[in-house]
């Protein structure tokens, strides 16, 4: 055994971190529709979040198999400590590399930057434990407040919603300014490349949140990981004495390790290690001039005199050759007291109670009482469960091909902060796309196959007759009818109206929002509301929708459309021709959603729409 030669030096962890971060970026970049080829699920990292893995099933009262890797990370931490934090977590990696990039090379530039053992004194470090207890308490009461602290969803959102759009903007700037050059060089693929801009609502939060963390990172390395991250706290709780932990042999007490420890897990005076703060990055292994540090599972080594090891599990006695140690420094932070833990958890329960008592909170919502713009992605589970399961990772928003999914501010109430909303004016829900459900790590949006998703109605379009060009001004505008992929907008000719006006056929309207997106008015006169949205936990959307009399067959399905012949003939509805779109049975077509429209019937001799006498 020659551990001094076999040990893995510190740079290994950094290489792993870098690789992990790059892989994370690539996966995020590959989270596009139509599906790009990826070796693993796009939510590979999200599945590993230990906090989400524990609290999402707790809050949702529903076991989510996809989060099993997070449980595995937790179990592995029993043996290997917070290796996740030091080696894998893209959040920690981001902070580490941002620090290097902004403030120099050393991962932790020594004592003056807070690398010292007590950096992040006890109380500050305890924030993460108390936050964890609070979130646990809330989750116990079925409320998801943990999205404020789950690191992988947070960092996913940061890159997907803030960094990616800005990079796209820059790239597009380069492409646009390079257009003459590409034209001259005859490079049509670059000349016409259009990186459609991604835009997201409410990025100020991410900007301030991560700006603050960066500022804290400047003050102290990995401040988030040391003091704030509740997932780190969870891992710390199981990493009190991991099997593979930092062990020190022939220590010369130079305190180099303490200065290089990015987590401040080593007391510079006593050389004691607080294992729950150690992220196993092995910076200390590389830093140690006498190569006395190992992360071996066995206790000590033949070369290391047992009496010199400083394997600290509890409160080992201070070496008496350190007379100048102040008690403040020497006293390494303890865990918060049981009272503090219980108090925080109780506070979480109380918070959940308050949130549930809010008059407009959607935690109590049934699907019939949603606020007007609260249009959820297709296949979103019923609202209370949705709020419990949604991690706010932003994957659905990243993947949405029309950029239609946007993070909510207060549209869905305080509990719905940052959860995805369909914003049709920004982009419609594409009938052939089911990407949001496929990437959702917790199945808050169900991973529906396309033939199911097509029936997962998200809302209903409503014509605002006071502003509609056709209704209010008698103008021949048919854009909503033209763009509707479901043939749900009909044009109806009415007495006293110069032009046929649009009405929505409730049975065919999916709420996709093509109409709202393309309404030529500066303020759309046809808007989607979450009316009649289907929100199902397990049942088949198709069967449910069919049972409710809905019909979302698309033209390319070769559906029997009244207009295309047979059925129209069979029902003798040919004379209804021009306006009789989607009316399957006489009397069936006029629904509540049609406003004052009546059964379309073209009187003999009247012209088809668009023609003049």
């Amino acid at each position, binding site marked *: 055994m020659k551990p001094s030669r076999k040990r893995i030096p510190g740079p290994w962890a950094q290489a792993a971190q870098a690789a992990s971060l790059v892989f994370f970026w690539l996966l995020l970049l590959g989270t596009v529709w139509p599906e790009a080829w990826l070796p693993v699920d796009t939510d590979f990292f999200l599945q590993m979040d230990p906090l989400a893995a524990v609290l999402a099933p707790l809050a949702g009262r529903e076991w989510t198999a996809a989060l099993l890797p997070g449980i595995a990370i937790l179990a592995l931490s029993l043996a290997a400590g917070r290796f996740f934090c030091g080696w894998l977590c893209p959040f920690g990696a981001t902070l580490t590399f941002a620090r290097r990039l902004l403030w120099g090379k050393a991962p932790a530039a020594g004592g003056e930057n807070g690398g010292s053992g007590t950096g992040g004194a006890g109380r500050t470090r305890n924030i993460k434990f108390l936050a964890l207890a609070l979130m646990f308490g809330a989750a116990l009461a079925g409320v998801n407040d943990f999205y404020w602290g789950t690191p992988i969803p947070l960092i996913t959102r940061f890159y997907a919603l803030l960094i990616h759009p800005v990079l796209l903007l820059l790239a597009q700037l380069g492409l646009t300014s390079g257009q003459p050059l590409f034209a001259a060089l005859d490079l049509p693929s670059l000349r016409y490349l259009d990186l459609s801009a991604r835009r997201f609502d409410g990025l100020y939060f991410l900007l301030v949140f991560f700006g603050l963390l960066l500022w804290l990172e400047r003050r102290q390395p990995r401040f988030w990981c040391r003091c704030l991250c509740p997932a780190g706290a969870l891992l710390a709780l199981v990493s009190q004495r991991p099997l593979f932990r930092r062990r020190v042999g022939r220590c010369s007490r130079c305190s180099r390790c303490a200065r290089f420890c990015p987590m401040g897990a080593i007391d510079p005076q006593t050389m004691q290690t607080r294992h729950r703060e150690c992220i196993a990055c092995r910076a200390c292994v590389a830093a140690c001039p006498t190569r006395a540090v190992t992360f071996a599972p066995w206790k000590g080594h033949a070369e290391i005199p047992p009496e010199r090891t400083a394997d600290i599990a509890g409160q080992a006695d201070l070496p008496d050759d350190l007379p100048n140690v102040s008690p403040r420094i020497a006293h390494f932070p303890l865990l918060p007291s049981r009272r503090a833990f219980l108090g925080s958890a109780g506070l979480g329960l109380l918070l959940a109670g308050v949130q549930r008592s809010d008059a407009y909170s959607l935690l109590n919502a049934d699907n019939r009482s949603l606020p007007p713009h609260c249009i959820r992605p297709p296949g979103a589970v019923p609202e209370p469960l949705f709020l419990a399961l949604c991690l706010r990772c932003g994957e659905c928003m990243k993947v949405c091909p029309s950029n239609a999914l946007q993070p909510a501010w207060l549209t869905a109430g305080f509990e719905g902060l940052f959860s995805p909303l369909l914003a049709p004016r920004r982009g419609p829900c594409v009938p052939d796309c089911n990407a949001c459900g496929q990437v959702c790590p917790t199945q808050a949006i169900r991973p529906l196959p396309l033939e199911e998703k097509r029936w997962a109605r998200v809302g209903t379009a409503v014509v605002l007759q006071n502003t509609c060009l056709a209704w209010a001004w008698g103008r021949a505008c048919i854009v909503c009818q033209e763009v509707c992929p479901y043939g749900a907008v009909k*044009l109806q000719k009415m007495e006293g109206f110069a032009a046929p006006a649009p009405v929505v056929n409730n049975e065919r309207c999916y709420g996709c929002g093509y109409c709202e997106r393309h309404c030529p008015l500066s303020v759309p006169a046809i808007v989607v509301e979450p009316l009649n949205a289907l929100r199902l936990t397990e049942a088949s959307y198709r069967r449910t929708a069919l049972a409710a009399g809905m019909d979302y067959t698309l033209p390319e399905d070769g559906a029997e459309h009244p207009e295309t012949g047979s059925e129209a003939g069979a029902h003798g509805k040919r004379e209804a021709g021009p306006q009789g779109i989607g009316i399957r049975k006489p009397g069936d077509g006029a629904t509540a959603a049609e406003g004052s429209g009546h059964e379309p019937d073209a009187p003999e001799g009247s012209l088809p729409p668009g*023609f003049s006498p």
Partner: protein
Amino acid sequence: MKRRDFLKWQVAGLGLLGVNAPLLAVAEKVFDGPPLPDVAVAKGSPGPATRAAVNQIGGMTRFVKPGQKVVIKPNMSFARGPESAVNTHPEVIGELLVMCREAGAGKILVLDHVLQDPELCLGRSGIRDICNAFQPGICHNLAAESFFVEADLPQAAEMRTNAFMRDVLEADVIIAAPVAKSHSAAGVSLSLKGQMGLIYDRRVMHSRYDLSTSIVDLAERVKPHLAVIDATRVLATNGPGGPGNVIQPGEVIASADPVAADATAVTSYEWYGRKIQPRQVQHLRLAHQRKLGRMDIEALVTKRVTA
């Protein structure tokens, strides 16, 4: 002969020449062959019918000179296949590309500003595939503002400005290659209406301006030099998006006059099961009045052939 008489004869001869110049031009045409028809209608499968129709009106060399930049404007706004008749048949576009190359065209582009998801539109319409098979990188949906330049329409009645595709303004030849379909606001969507796909903001044509008037305004700037209307399938009802009644005339209409081409399509097929006159399509009537073309096709020469 006196000198005076000689001069008289000379003057008379000159006068005769002057009077008969148009006649001479006709003679020249006769000498070159029979006069070209104003409109050609060819029956057949999409590709051959396209070629036959264009050949009837003088062939592609009449429109495209060697080295010229050509923009072809198809319909590919909808994420549906050719059978739906909401997009131009890809083989019509494919044949036009080949003909342009045969005529010696320099740069050829197939451009549109589509309605639905661009990937699906370009893919499902089949148009991108056929373009890429011809020459990769020529078929594009242009939506970003940077591809458009603001241009005035001084002759316009209402819409005096809009942003046009830079490539279209720079093109020597614009070929409109729409599919024939009904349109619930404009009556029909053919080679004039289809040019709405060449501008950045077409919303204003519905909201701020009168649609028919602004369609004609558009023609003041981007009137196609050649109109090839794909009537192999015609969406006779419920256009432009369908689904509607698709009839199968199996024809392609070509003309150097887009108004005449459109008028021919209007009269050749039944819309909503009835006969429609070109004057009943407001933008054709306006275009005719503004002398952008002729809708009085009964006064024009139409040649019908079978490919």
